Structure formats: structure tokens, C-alpha cells
């Protein structure tokens, strides 16, 4: 175990795999000497050299598109897209190419690639550099979507993502990059598709991921002081989704609140709600609540942005409304 930040844990996950497998390489804008826009790849260029850590021009379609070709030929690219918002510039390469190649080719191609990209508001970066867009990727059959909420998960899921033979969207949260935690050393793998109960409870289930996991845990502590014992479940990967863990928790608590930073409409919370409304209807003794950002673009002004981001207060309010 080593105490390290979420960002260091991501880097450590990449380092472990780059040492183990010479086919793993990193490509993206300013990922080499500069260390990436948020410093996540810092030092890897010095350690692994220019053949393994490569700067690209500002050409998102090539960053993701080239990875599809390289992965199909047996390499294991980790492509960095500087902000998840920029996925709009390379959506076809992910959606119509990476995701579908294996299927279209009758199983005869593997596309083991990872797209690493940061999401999230709170930096005053406005409408095109602050979004959470994970539900987009969950709508594309053939892509896995990973969203770690702790440092240890960041490492274990990164290693699992790199070793996976499918395209994986690995979405980091900017607000979590400095969050520290105990992280297992060496080859530590968290399997894709396995939820984690981050806090056990009996009165209500909160399903939350990424930064909202941390906010939900804080809210749960405050609710405990008021006598409401919250279970906080972190799916960790949205596709594949650990449906059974969610249903099991709801069968215990009878109540479900889903918290995410994406805007509400067509956010992944809707999918989880729909699954429980179909497969766990009889467990429910109250409406399913969603706490999410409102249906607006992300405003620049800090006062507006803070209102946009789901808060502990809103989580607490949603939970209390069920009692």
C-alpha cells in the first residue's frame, strides 16, 4: 500500500502496464514532456521515451482513429483526449469504428484501446470544457465505460482497462485528481463490471460515481447524524453495469437515489432508474429520485457554476424527501 493521489494512481496504473507489456503506449496532445494538460502523464516520457509516450497535433479524430487501427494490429494504445467535451470531435472514430469493428468483422478483430479523458465542472471552464458526458458512451454497444471515484479504484480500473480486449472509455474527474488514498502496489486489478459498496447502510441506497461518490459519502455522514443510514454504492463501471449489486442493495433498503453530475435528461441515472423500475419494482417503497445537474449548458460565472453542480445539500434534500 502506498498513499498517493488519484492522479498518481492513474499514472501508476499506466506505468505498471507499460513495464509489463511493450505494446502499451500513450498518445495525445501534450502528453510527453508537458505531462498532459492536468499533469497525469508527467514523468512517463522520461521513463519510457518518445516511442511510448507520443505527442500528437491537435487532431482528435486521428488520436482516437489511429488507436483503432493500432489496436486492431495488436498494440494497446492509451489515447488521451484533453477534455471529455472534445469527444464530439472524434465521436465517429469511437462510435462507428472502435465500438463496431469486432462485430462488423464477425469477431475477427480485437480493439484493445483505452481513451482517457477528464470530465467535470468546478474550474470555471464554462460550456465546452466542463461537461460530464458518460451516458453518451453507454449508449454505444461495444464500448465499456469506466468512472473511478477513488485513488485505489483509479489504479485498479486503469490496469483492467488496458488489459481489456475492448475499447474502454476511462473517464477521470478533474476535481478528484488531487484526492489521496491508499493504493495497492504493483499489479492491482479491479475487475470491470463490479460495483463497490463504499458505505454500508440499511435505510436508502445512493448510487453515485466519480466526484459525486465523494459528495454522496459526505452527505451520508450528515444524514447518519440525523438517523438516516445510507448505503452508498459505486458502480465504478457503467458498462458493464453491476445490475445485481444495485438490485440487491435496493431490495435491502427499499429506496433509491441516483446522483450524477451529468445533466438530468438522458443522463445515465435514467438508465439505472429504468432498470430498477423494471426489475426491482417490488422492492421499492418510494419513488426513485435523481440528483443531477439541471438541463442547461455549463455557465462560466462561478456563482452560476456552483448552482449547476449537484451539492451535498441537494443530495441530503432528495434523500429526506423519501422519508
Amino acid at each position, binding site marked *: 500500500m502506498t498513499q498517493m493521489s488519484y492522479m498518481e494512481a492513474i499514472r501508476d496504473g499506466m506505468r505498471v502496464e507499460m513495464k509489463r507489456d511493450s505494446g502499451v503506449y500513450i498518445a495525445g*496532445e*501534450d502528453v510527453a*514532456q*508537458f505531462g498532459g*494538460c492536468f499533469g497525469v502523464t508527467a514523468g512517463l516520457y522520461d521513463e519510457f521515451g518518445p516511442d511510448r509516450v507520443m*505527442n500528437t*497535433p*491537435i*487532431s*482528435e*479524430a486521428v488520436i482516437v482513429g489511429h488507436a483503432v487501427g493500432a489496436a486492431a494490429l495488436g498494440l494497446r494504445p492509451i489515447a488521451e483526449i484533453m477534455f471529455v*467535451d*472534445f469527444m*464530439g*470531435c472524434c465521436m465517429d472514430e469511437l462510435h462507428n469504428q472502435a465500438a463496431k469493428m469486432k462485430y462488423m468483422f464477425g469477431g475477427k478483430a480485437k480493439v484493445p484501446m483505452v481513451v482517457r479523458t477528464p470530465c467535470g465542472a468546478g*474550474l*470555471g*471552464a*464554462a*460550456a*465546452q*470544457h466542463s461537461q460530464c458526458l458518460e451516458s453518451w458512451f453507454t449508449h454505444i454497444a461495444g464500448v465499456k465505460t469506466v468512472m473511478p471515484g477513488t485513488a485505489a479504484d483509479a489504479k485498479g480500473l486503469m490496469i483492467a482497462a488496458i488489459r481489456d480486449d475492448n475499447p474502454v472509455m476511462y473517464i477521470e474527474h478533474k476535481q478528484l485528481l488531487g484526492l489521496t488514498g491508499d493504493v495497492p502496489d504493483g499489479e492491482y486489478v479491479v475487475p470491470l463490471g463490479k460495483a463497490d459498496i463504499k458505505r454500508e447502510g440499511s435505510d436508502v441506497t445512493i448510487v453515485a460515481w466519480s466526484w459525486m461518490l465523494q459528495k454522496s459519502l459526505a452527505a451520508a455522514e450528515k444524514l447518519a447524524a440525523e438517523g438516516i443510514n445510507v448505503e452508498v454504492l459505486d458502480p465504478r463501471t457503467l458498462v458493464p453495469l453491476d445490475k445485481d449489486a444495485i438490485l440487491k442493495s435496493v431490495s435491502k433498503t427499499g429506496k433509491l437515489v441516483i446522483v450524477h453530475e451529468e445533466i438530468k435528461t438522458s443522463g445515465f441515472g435514467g438508465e439505472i432508474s429504468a432498470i430498477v423500475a423494471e426489475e426491482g419494482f417490488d422492492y421499492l417503497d418510494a419513488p426513485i429520485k435523481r440528483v443531477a445537474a*439541471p*438541463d*442547461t*449548458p455549463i*455557465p*462560466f*460565472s*462561478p*456563482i*452560476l457554476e456552483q*448552482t*449547476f453542480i449537484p451539492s451535498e445539500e441537494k443530495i441530503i434534500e432528495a434523500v429526506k424527501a423519501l422519508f
Partner: protein
Amino acid sequence: MDIQKKQLLEFYQQMVTIRIFESRVCELFAAGQIPGFVHSSLGQEAIAAGVMACVEKDDKVGLHHRSHGEMIAKGADMNKMMAELFGKATGTCKGKGGSMHIADMDLGILGANGILGAGYAIATGAAFACQYNETKDIALCLFGDGQSNRGPFHESLNVAALWKLPIVFICENNGFGLSNPVKEHLATDCVSDRAAAYGIPGVTVDGNDVLAVYETTLEAVDRARKGNGPSLLEFTTWRWHGHFEGDPAVYKDAQEQEEWLKKDPIPRFAKQLLEQKNATQAELDEMQAKGEALVDAAVKFAEESPWPDVSELFTDVYDRQM
């Protein structure tokens, strides 16, 4: 070219005002008064001043993320601009856009853009509207060397050339795409080499020479206005600061930076004005003082302006409440 003294002095005024504005923005950012991301255009003032002197109020302009200078030179209200950078209710965009999305449709400014390379098609669409409406208006599309590597560059230049749209594509080659020097992100020597692919004029000109910028742009604007189609201009300059404020830019070569700082477009033009007796030192000092006063007033306006009401979060998503 015989340029009127009034215009020459206007170039100088614009350049110093932009310099003062941008310097102050950097200070305010460092002091925590301006949130978010700021991409400074310090060192690139001659392009903003020279280019915008060639267009009329009704001409359309598509900008990029490093475009405060062009906004000012096109005539934007600096008070509202500064308020926008602060995130105040009185800002150009009511505080909703910030530096990366600063815009003013009343002046035909279709916005800075946070998505590098997204501006080509939007500006080309504006040029299409000018042609469609049979006005004499034209569009400008400004972008950096780094974003010239996005795919939409090709689509828009091809169509603009094919349809002879009234647009001028202007690359501000400031030496870097974020941390990457031009020679490491561009397969050719110049962005303007690509003009040949579209059968349009392409030139590379010293972007720290305001008169060269002006004359080159004027010719391209004239060509566009006459219905002869687009041009691709490349103005070489140097980004004094990092990609964003807070980027220490350790990737820069110290000697190269030193050499470029000596090519500062402002003292260079001041020297020309004085030598050719188009201005006295007193006049230059006066313009400097005017710039300082304008920026002081803008900062004061921004500081004293109210924050947006939180209900503003929900407005302007659509033309009506849904």
C-alpha cells in the same frame, strides 16, 4: 501603400490598449479575480490591430480562444468584456461565456471558441449568409497554428473555395500548439502552403509588423468583397506567455523567447511612427495614457458590477422556457 496618419495612430492606439488590457487580465487572473482559463494574446497585438482595421462593422468575425485583442480591435466594449472575464452580470455574455466564449453578435463577432477548429465552419456559414443575402459583407475566420491541424479546416476551406465565399482565413502562427513548437506539429513549413490544395492565394507574412498585416489583409478582404473568393493568410508571431495563464511554458527555448521579445511589435511600430514623423513622443504617451484609463475604467466597472442572479443559470438555453 499610402496610409493616412489617422489610421497609423489608430493602429498604435489599438495595440497599446490591447497590450494594457491583456497585461491587466493576466495580473487579475494571477490575483484570483478572474476565474477559469485565460489564454493571453500578449505579443500578438499587431495582428488584431492590423486585421480588424480592414473590416466594417457589419462584417462577420469568427474567433478562437486567444481573441481578446480582436474583440477590442473590432470595437467591443471593454467594460463589458472585462465584466465577462470576471463572470459578472454586466458582461458581454451575462457572465455565462467567459474568456473562451466571449462574443458580441451586435458587432458581428461570432464568438471565441473553446473547441479548437470548430470556428472554421461557423465563419464559413457566416460568409455563406453574406453571399446569400447579396450584401457586400464578408467574414473573417481567425485561428491558431495548432488548430490548423483539425479536420474541419479542410472541409471549410474546400467549400469556401468551391463556392467563392467572401471569407478570409487568417492563421495567427504564434509558434506553438499548446506545448508543441510548430516544427513538431506541422508537416509543412507553413500553414499557408495548404492554400495550394484549394486553389486559393496563400501567403505568410510577418505578423509583428502591423503595416504588413494590414496591407495583406486589406488585399484579401478586397478580393473577398469583390466576389473573388477566399484567401489563406498566415501571420507569424510569438506567444509571449504559456498556452494558458499559469502554464510556466518550460518547453520554450529561452534564447528564442529572448529574440522574439526583441521583436515586440509595439516599440517597433513606435520607432517607425517617430522616425517618419507621423507621431510625436507626446502623442504616443497620450495614447498610452488613454489605454491605461480605458482599462482602469473597465476593471472598475467589472469590480463594481453585480454577480448574476442564480436564476440566470436557467435562461438562454432556448429562446423560451421549455
